């Protein structure tokens, strides 16, 4: 379990980090919390020439408020997320999902931005970001650009991040009055990845569902939205019957994988059950 040799840079600002990435040659990897990268390096499944370690880039860490949005620094750790007062007030879906990430030790080092940039469809945060229509702020040699979550996740472990670019912050809408949320995770042991999980944020208005945002974890090579269910929920009365009927469409358009934990048809079944449970919990049924 010894990584292959690599060069190492530890910048302290975003600017230095971009420079280090530019200087790092073709095979440069950015190290955030290292909870996914270090294991694959130790197994020699990854052998980058250069590692750019962001842990000393203080400006990338923390959560702030900007109007109707929360801005989460990419290097904010999961442990930070769980204790942040702004997220406690406006970001409960993120908090709930983060609570289920691995174990205490991993949450201490692992970061919000690292988990998103890694883009593991079995990771818990990508589906949450997608459900929230988060915006990803990417810094590059030519300046900054903002990418919506729907465009950020491209394929299995693949994002729209270009060579030389860095994910610096993530903007999510504040969910306030009227919103209920639930992250419903299904796995075999507490510290494992999701076999399937559902992130639901639902807004109630006058006893009806006004808006529903549902993200699916591990139902395809990227996180997905349960669009058919979302559409079916809008305007319906809040009842187990309506929620169950809408949730029956949760697996539409998904293409989950077969692996040790589940075959595709079982995952599609789970998506329906978990969507029903997540939405029901989110609306307080």
């Amino acid at each position, binding site marked *: 379990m010894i990584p*292959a040799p690599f060069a190492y840079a530890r910048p302290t600002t975003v600017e230095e980090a971009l420079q280090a990435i530019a200087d790092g040659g073709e095979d440069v990897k950015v190290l955030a919390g290292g909870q996914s990268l270090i294991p694959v390096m130790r197994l020699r499944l990854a052998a980058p020439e250069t590692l750019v370690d962001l842990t000393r880039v203080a400006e990338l860490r923390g959560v702030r408020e900007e109007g109707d949005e929360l801005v989460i620094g990419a290097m904010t750790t999961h442990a930070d997320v769980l204790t942040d007062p702004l997220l406690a007030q406006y970001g409960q879906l993120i908090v709930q999902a983060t609570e289920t990430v691995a174990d205490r030790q991993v949450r201490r080092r692992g970061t919000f931005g690292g988990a998103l940039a890694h883009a593991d469809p079995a990771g818990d945060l990508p589906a949450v970001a997608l459900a929230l229509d988060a915006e990803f702020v990417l810094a590059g040699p030519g300046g900054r650009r903002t990418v919506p979550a729907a465009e950020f996740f491209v394929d299995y472990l693949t994002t729209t991040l270009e060579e030389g670019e860095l994910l610096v912050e993530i903007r999510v809408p504040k969910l306030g009055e009227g919103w209920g949320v639930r992250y419903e995770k299904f796995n*075999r*042991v*507490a*510290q494992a990845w999701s076999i399937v999980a559902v992130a639901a944020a639902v807004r109630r208005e006058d006893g009806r569902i006004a808006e529903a945002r549902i993200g699916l974890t591990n139902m395809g090579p990227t996180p997905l939205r349960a669009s058919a269910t979302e559409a079916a929920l809008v305007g319906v009365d809040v009842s187990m019957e309506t929620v169950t009927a809408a949730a029956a469409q949760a697996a539409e358009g998904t293409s989950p994988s*077969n*692996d*040790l934990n589940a075959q595709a048809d079982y995952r599609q079944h*789970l998506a329906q*059950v978990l969507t029903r449970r997540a939405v029901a919990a989110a609306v307080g049924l």
Partner: protein
Amino acid sequence: MTAVEDPTSAVDLPAAKEVGQARRRKEDARLITGKTTWTDNMVLPGMLHLAVLRSPVAHGRITHLDVSAAKERPNVVAVYTGADFAEEQGSLPCAWPVTPEMVNPGHPSIAVEQVNHVGEAVAIVVARSRTAAADALEAIDVDYEPLPVVLDMEQAVQDGSPLVHDHTTSNTSYHFVFDAGDAGTGGDTEQAFADAEVTVSRRFVQQRLIPAFMEPRSVVVQPSGDSYTMWSATQIPHILRVMAAMVTGIPEHKLRVIAPDVGGGFGGKLQVNPEEILCLLIARRLGKPVKWTETRGESLMTAHHGRDQVQFIDVAADRDGTVRGLRVRLLADMGAYLRLITPGVPALGAFMFPGIYKFPAYRFECDGVFTNKVPTDAYRGAGRPEATFAIERIMDELAVELGMDPLELRRKNWINTEEFPFTTVAGLEYDSGDYHQATEQALELLGYDELRAEQKRRRESNDPVQLGIGFSTFTEMCGLAPSRVLGSLAFGAGGWEQASIRMLPTGKVEVVTGSTPHGQGHETAWSQIVADELGVPFEDVEVLHGDTAISSRGLDTYGSRSLVVGGTAVVKAAEKVVEKARVIAAHLLEANADDLEFTGGKFTVRGTPGAGVGIQEVALAIFAAHDYPEGIEPSIDAEATFDPENFSFPHGTHICAMEIDTETGFAKIRKYACVDDVGTIVNPLIVEGQVHGGLAQGIAQAMYEEAIYDAEGNLTTGSFVDYLVPAASDLPHFDTGNTVHVATSNPLGAKGVGEAGCIASTPAVVNAALDAVRHLGVTDIRMPLTPERVWRAIHAGGDGGDRAAQGSNAYGGARTTESGIQEAAQ
């Protein structure tokens, strides 16, 4: 005035016995904080590091192997291949030829021409640092000509199957039979089945498991002249010394083996490992100290595995539930080679299939089968969990067939307490116990009636979460083992254990035990025993172990033998110390030895109040040796070797209450209660810890763990991401209790507890899951009970099927057989 306490008055008070105290383990501080010398912590001057290149193919001929580039890598000292050791490596030992005809194809430590499982060593880099050795592995060039891969036992035993070893004539290593009719311990099994009113036949799968000990294996060898010292993270320093000497030709007296503190084993370190032999060979060749420490990936892939049986089991009974006969046929996966006791594990299980029931007839057959997988060998319980699972599962199936309560069926057939000692149909003499009492106590701990009522409510309301209750009323054979019995089973060693006690001049006591711990708490328990036997403070006792130069004789730790056999040797040694000290004390007290009483560490003269001498004072007196009787040696040190005349038979009742989410298939233990009878309890805290750990492992077999190979023979579950070992957060609270019926085969009355939880729990969990969903048409669910399997069994029938592993090796679905024996024999 100050009252001065007369020190002699304490003698009159009953001293608190150490045995029975829940002492915290004295060794834990250093073990838990790591402030000890684990083998991998060893650093010796000039020490070199080994890294092993392992085969990525399950079966193939090595057609090209070029290590020249690796030799040029920085800090590399040497690179070896099988060709370098072909003449001197011999074969790793197999100590248990279970039948005279057993085929042992031989087990090279490093492959020479052919590889037979993924992970087999093909080259070794020796370098000045561990990292340099690991880096150089990448420069080795190997080509393999693939051979057909044999993975499925049921296919492997068919005529025309490709062979794992082309110099053998079939993939069957041995055919072992125990027939109670032939042995004179039971009636004619075929006749019993022919006459039976009811028969039930099932095929159960014992999945392959990985011992997954916490401390990876590690070996250091230091040559010194023509002598060698080996440190190894092993359970068996004594056995390893003998075997390594025989394999390498290093004379036994020139080889010292040390097992320092060892971080778990579960049977997985009951082995003579290829790397231990290779370290010796390389240290001998280079004349320098070498170290090898495995990575976790290497550990999961190449350390021996456990279980892996297909079990065909038939039970015959009367309509009223009285059992008439039991028939078992096993296919046991040996893997690619026979390691230390690979063939013996299922054969040992042969004697436990009848469990606690009074079967009048019994026949057992087992085929050991070669496949292109890592060898199997001992894993916590070793043969007994497999047997217990099969009998406790089939008893439930029989109860269903008869429409009887599963507990009622058990009560009808189990041995009653007044029938002990009871000779079973397998020829074992069970020592003691009360199955009724343990069961009643466990039912109470569980809150049985309340849970049965809730189960009924959930069933009636068609609740998506169904509840089930499962039983396991088990026994096991422990205290391995009477040497003569091992001899009759063709085992290559005895089963005695040795201890010695050294009385130091200051009165402190060194206890040397041949039973080497790897986490069990021997130091604490042995100290408690000796404190009572010698009447010295617990703190005055130090326990030494694990070094063949310190503990010259021993047979190490496995099979719940340490306390039963090793602890008894300690007692016997202590008795000798007291007897030797008595002679000296009599001399010092100018009394007749026969008039001395020994209590609380003090010799007193009967009828002469006030006259007395402590055993610790005697130790000083005999160290000085200025004044002692003529004709005796000036020492009260003693040693003893104990060879038990029988096994001990712990038993217990384990009850699991299981919730099944029928929508997702998720199984969750609602409550778990068990009452174990392990005989005399020396330390209740250690006993409870052993039960908890055993339960975790037994539950893990039922619910979490499974070593899966893909169609090419790669271990799919090669990391802890895929090989799921449950953590505390995944396990329920355990309600545990004990009954105490002392063992009759040793003076301590201890029966052994190391494996009980692991042996008993697995069938209780599976029986509970089936009880929750049987009304939905489910008759079996294959282990582990993954949510997907449970869901499929509920919604699609069958036993849940294989897990997707991109072409799994497929045990084939479980199915009900008319007669498993005939079918498997075809």
